[in-house]
Every structure is written in C-alpha cells, then in structure tokens.
C-alpha cells in the first residue's frame, strides 16, 4: 500500500504493509538508522521521533496512522548537529554507548518546545520513558538544563 509522509522536511511515498511500524519504515525503507530499536513495545523510548512536533514511540505507530503527517527524526533535528540539545550533549560529554541518546534528545527537544525552562522534576517526568542502561541520567539532566539556558526551545 502506498503511503505518503513527510520526513525531515522531505516528502516520501512508501509502498509497505499499512501496519508496518513507522520505526521500520524510517530505518529500513528510508535508510534513516539514527532512530533505534530497543524493545518494540514502547517501553524503552529509543524509537522516539516527533509526529507533528510531538514525541511518539515509532515502534508501535503503524505507518498508515501517520499518512500525510510531518515526522522529524534525530537526523532532522538540525542540519549539522547544532541544535542546542546536540551541542549541550557534546559539551557535557553525555553519551557512553549512545544507543538511547537519539531518543533521549528527541524527547528532550519536545519538552523544551513546551517548557523552555524545565526543573529537574520536569526533565525526569518527560524523559521517564527513555531508558539508559549506561546510566548517563545525571549528565542528560545537566545537558537539558544547559540547552535550556541557550534557548533550547529553538
């Protein structure tokens, strides 16, 4: 079935089964592997992308449900890694293995759009569903604060 959606500002028409999770359309059909698979059950957050600006878990989002929508992945957050969250993440040296970080950053980006100056509790609540086995949580929080100070809502 042919479905058209806009990903990172570019329109794509894909021919996939309508119940294909958006995650696999992004990774396999469109080759955007920045969004990760961690559980397939919306429990870990590594598949987080923006649907019309809102964070969603793409692993349980059937692509038919996003026909005509605007999707943003980590690759589209900025053209060159200069989103305030991305630069803050580097300045705070957040990543260890890095597998969860695209999802963390996408969740954080949505948070800062809603709440440009979040408290620790706000950050914890917004990123609660993004798991990090390496345990980078303290630095994630620092980086979100750092990005907020830079006007991270963009």
């Amino acid at each position, binding site marked *: 079935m042919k479905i058209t959606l806009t990903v990172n500002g570019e329109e794509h028409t894909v021919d996939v089964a309508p119940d294909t999770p958006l995650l696999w359309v992004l990774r396999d059909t469109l080759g955007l592997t920045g969004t990760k*698979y961690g559980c397939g059950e919306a429990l870990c957050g590594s598949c987080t992308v923006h649907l019309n600006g809102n964070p969603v878990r793409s692993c349980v989002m059937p692509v038919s449900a996003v026909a005509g929508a605007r999707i943003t*992945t*980590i690759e589209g*957050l*900025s053209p060159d*890694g200069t989103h305030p969250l*991305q630069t803050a*993440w580097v300045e705070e*040296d957040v*990543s260890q293995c890095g597998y969860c970080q695209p999802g963390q950053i996408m969740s954080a980006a949505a948070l800062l759009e809603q709440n440009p100056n979040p408290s620790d509790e706000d950050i914890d609540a917004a990123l609660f569903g993004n798991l990090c086995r390496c345990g980078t949580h303290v630095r994630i929080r620092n980086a979100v604060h750092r990005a907020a100070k830079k006007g991270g809502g963009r």
Partner: protein
Amino acid sequence: MGNTKISRRSFLKVSAAATGGLIIGFYIPVDESLADTTQDVERFEPNAFLSISRDGSVTIMAKNPELGQGVKTSLPMIIAEELEVNWEDVRIEQADLDPRLGGQWAGGSMSVTYNWDMLRTAGATAREMLITAAANEWNAERRECYAEAGHVHHRPSGRSTAYGDLVDAAAELPVPDDVDVKDPKDFRIVGTSKLNTDAKDLVTGRTIFGIDVKVPGML
C-alpha cells in the same frame, strides 16, 4: 642481532604507503617472507596502528570494540601519548577485524591493562624513528633531540621539523628493538579527561551500531 632485527620486523612493520606516510603495524609474527617485501608494502599492510602522512595528519586505529566503555578514545590516547602528538591533531578510526592487531576483545575491564605496554611501545617506536630521522638529517646526536607536539626539536640549535616532513626518511629506518617509554610524570594526554571521540556522531544519529549494519543479501 641480525635475527633480532628480522623478528622485530615481523612484530612491528614499518612502511611508507604509496600516498606517502609512515605506518607502524602490529603483527602477530607472520610469514617472514612477507616482512622483507618492502617494495609493495601497501599491499601487505592494510591495517596498522598508526599512520602519519606527509601532510602531518595522524590516524590512530582503535583496535577494540567500543560499547560505551570508552576504549575507542582511551586506547588511542595511549598511543598518542608516546607518539608525542597533540591530541587535537589525532584522527581515530575504528579498526576492522584484523588478526595482526592481536586480541580484539573487550571484557573484564581489561582493555587498558591488557594493551598498555603494547600500545605504548607502538607509539614510542614511531616517535623514536621520527627522532632518528631528524637527527640523521641534521647530523645531530640523538640525545640532543626530543619530540613534542608532532615535531622533533634539536635542543642546542632550537631548530625543529614537523613529523610530516620526516615520514619518508623514517620509513627507511630499521625498526628499533628497544625503545624507552615516557616517564608517567611527563604524561600530557593519559590521565586527562578527553571527550568521547564519537560524541558528535552519536547525537546526530550517524554512528553505526550492529543493528544498523547493512550487507548485501541480508533479510
């Protein structure tokens, strides 16, 4: 001593690549006949631990799997320390599977301990050859020369030469058997906190993890 030189050559292989550079390779002892074939060296040395090209750029291979423990950054730091280059001038490349690199495993928090001596020796050997090349060019005594920040310096006259200008000459030299490693009190890189070399790629989704690898014919 002749035997030592040949066996050393099979342990640490030096060559000038066709592009013009000094490559120090790590070998588990290989077929001796390969070690003596210096003409077509590029063919015999696809993965070395460090290379320096004529423009002075330094590439250091990261031999072990990186899984967030930081060895892609820390193991090259050990080499760079002994090599006497600025950390900012180092480009790190993840090594492919290569039996010449020895055991390419990570576990038990052993990467640094297990590779400490070998990587220091690799960096120090390259540094010594560069110093020798400069000393030869200047007709100077080895002890009057020292390496720092990607240059060899001649203490009495104050002159210096960049590594990039020494690679051809250094590649012609025999690989020294015994090199001194630095006194830890002189460490400028090891013992300092360096940024994860993959930091920027990880936050832009560019890093390739196992699940991201594509090979022809995969399902």
